[in-house]
């Protein structure tokens, strides 16, 4: 046992000595003349070295030479920039420059087998790619979205392509009026998006599954969705509403009139949280955009809204009653739980609006109303119980008070008869 311990100690000694002896040689062998020289430079010539420190490529062991060529082992600048040296690619060369590796599946498998290798192919189908093909170098290339030397994985929260950085990243160009002037497209997308229900989910609730630009427009193959495809984009996350709409009479009419399905009522980038005011025939109602008064659809819209208002009022009444009973100290957790069933029915009914079927909506609303009625009854009973408790307390306290007064008088009488000595 002791001998084994000694052997272990000798092995440790040799290992430590070897590390000390060979470390300078190892570090010399790993020296990189690109980094050594650029470190001594300033501004944009120093920036690549600093940014590359946090670059995903560096983490996988890649270095300057893997993209730019050259011989980093040579200390002389002319020798280092040998015939393999590629220097900085021109903007129009960038997609191909990155694709040398990123389109090579066998090469990419060594680092990240799950990463797609069709980025370049997709890029050339995109609006950006089309413009670049036509010689417009203002069109976005890889480095505009992914950064140049500080490229980080899309899963890194500081990466430009991390969900909550994407809207701002796209907005750098798309919100710049002078930059986008010649393309004659809106520059309000980022401002509109910020007010949307999706932005609320992303920025306030930190819900990373909330859609950002690329979820609707694609990323490498980014194009604006056509009228016919907008609905399919929304369907990805809202399949139930989409199915109901597809079976509704609106579907055929919208297709014939070439009205984009979801956008017609909900808007596009500024998709604000839907409210019940969007229903019916009121000022904010979207139904009256198309339906004239005194038409049957107009009547149906009115009826649906009326149904919803009644149902919501019942839920509110039930909720208020339970809150009041709760404040009064009556145990109402069971009816409170029951009320969640009515709320669930309301959610279902709201979704059913996309079917525009009065019968279906009425059926679901009535189902929920039945539950709400039961909860209202339970709430009223709870308030009666609270009242009963207070009355009981008054009676009991009066009784105790009378008893106490009687006792007090009795004590006084006794003390008068037998005073303390």
């Amino acid at each position, binding site marked *: 046992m002791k001998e084994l311990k000694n052997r272990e100690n000798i092995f440790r000694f040799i290992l430590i000595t070897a590390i000390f002896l060979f470390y300078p040689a190892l570090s010399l062998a790993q020296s990189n003349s690109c980094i050594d020289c650029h470190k001594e430079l300033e501004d944009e010539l120093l920036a690549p070295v600093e940014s590359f420190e946090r670059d995903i490529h560096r983490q996988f062991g890649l270095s300057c030479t893997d993209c730019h060529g050259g011989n980093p082992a040579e200390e002389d600048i002319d020798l280092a920039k040998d015939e393999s040296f590629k220097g900085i690619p021109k903007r129009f060369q960038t997609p191909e420059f990155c694709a040398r590796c990123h389109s090579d599946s066998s090469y990419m498998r060594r680092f990240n087998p799950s990463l797609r290798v069709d980025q370049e192919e997709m890029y050339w189908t995109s609006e950006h790619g089309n413009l670049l093909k036509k010689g417009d170098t203002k069109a976005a290339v890889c480095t505009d979205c992914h950064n140049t030397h500080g490229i980080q994985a899309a899963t890194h929260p500081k990466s430009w392509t991390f969900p909550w950085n994407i809207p701002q990243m796209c907005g750098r160009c798309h919100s710049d009026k002078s930059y986008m002037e010649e393309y004659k497209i809106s520059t309000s997308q980022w401002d509109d998006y910020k007010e949307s229900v999706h932005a609320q989910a992303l920025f306030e609730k930190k819900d990373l599954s909330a859609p950002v630009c690329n979820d609707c427009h694609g990323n490498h193959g980014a194009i604006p969705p056509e009228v016919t495809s907008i609905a399919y984009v929304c369907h990805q996350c809202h399949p139930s509403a989409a199915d109901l709409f597809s079976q509704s009479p609106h579907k055929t009419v919208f297709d014939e009139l070439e009205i984009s399905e979801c956008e017609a009522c909900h808007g596009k980038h500024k998709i604000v949280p839907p409210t019940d005011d969007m229903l019916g025939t009121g000022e904010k109602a979207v139904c009256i955009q198309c339906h004239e008064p005194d038409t049957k659809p107009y009547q149906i819209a009115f009826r649906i809204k009326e149904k919803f208002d009644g149902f919501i009022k019942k839920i509110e009444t039930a909720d208020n009653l339970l809150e009041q009973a709760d404040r009064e*100290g*009556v145990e109402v957790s069971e009816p409170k739980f029951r009320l969640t069933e009515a709320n669930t029915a309301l959610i279902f009914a709201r979704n059913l609006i996309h079917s525009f079927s009065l019968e279906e909506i009425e059926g679901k609303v009535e189902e929920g109303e039945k539950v709400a009625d039961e909860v209202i009854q339970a709430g009223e009973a709870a308030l009666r119980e609270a009242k009963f408790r207070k009355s009981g*307390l008054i009676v009991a306290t009066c009784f105790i008070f009378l*008893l*106490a007064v009687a006792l007090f008088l009795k004590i006084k009488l006794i003390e008068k008869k037998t005073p303390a000595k």
Partner: protein
Amino acid sequence: MKNFIKTAFTYLDARFLLSDIAQFAKKKKVPEHKHSFWYYFGGICLFLFIIQVITGILLLLYYSPSIDSAYESIHTIMGKVKFGWLIRSVHSWTANILVGAIFIHMFSSFFMKAYRPPRELTWISGFFLLLIFLAFGFSGYLLPWNELAFFATRVGTDIAGTLPVIGKSIEAFILGGPEISGATLPRFFWFHVAILPLFTVIIMGAHIILVQTLGMSKPIGLPEKEIKEVPFFPNFILKDSLGWMIILALIGVLCVFFPWEIGQKADAFAATPLGIKPEWYFTFMFTTLKIMPSHVLFAEGEILAILGFMVGGLLWMLIPFLDRNAAKEKKSPVISLIGFIILLYIIIMTALTYLHPRL
């Protein structure tokens, strides 16, 4: 009717010596002076204990001591059982008022030096009753198996577990394992309804017998002419009853306007809620542990504080033997000052817990 009562009394008197007891009560005198108000807290404690027993027995009808059904049974008691809300609220409120009344009774006895000979054992038995009722509170707090109780109990038992050498064994004994589990609840229930009541009956019995046989202590230094005597029965008992009435009315108001909450069901896998703290009567110790530095010289601050409380408690119990002046019927201002500082410390630390929860 009168004849029947007389016959029944004669029958019982022959067997239970009721006349002798009545005679004793009539002859027994209670001192009356400017501080005699504090005497009534002993009777109030007894009254509250009786309420605890009655409501506790009633709660047993519906309470189920298992982690799968304890919380639900409390829900049933509070929501479905007729007057269940009242019984549980009375039980919970009374438990808290009782601990407060015991503290008042103890400190008033301390400042009136009621522990001096021959009443040393009355003081010591009273001290044990305090410990028992604190244990009642600690074990009863977990029984509803709600989130607050679960985590507060965990904090409490974790503190016990930090004691050197025996800490882990004590913790395992209390919890029925290394942590709060399905084994803990029946164990706490067993403590709460079997072991602690048994000890209470024995010690409270001894305490009451000692009080009755030795009588009430008179404060030191009060001129004899300022001390009068009144018969225990009916004068004192009736005044005591008046106090009980007032307390009963107060409990009724509290229960109607602030019924005891049920909270959320305990979830062992949930994160400890923010600002978790034990029942109010443990908070002075809890806050002390929080503000203690991690190390004092070579000792761990927390362990030092726990040992300090243990030694302090022991000295407090032995005060009748330490206060030599009081034993000689002389004033002992130093001991009174120490008692005052302790009382002030408890009040300040308890207040700090609620006023500065992030301390």
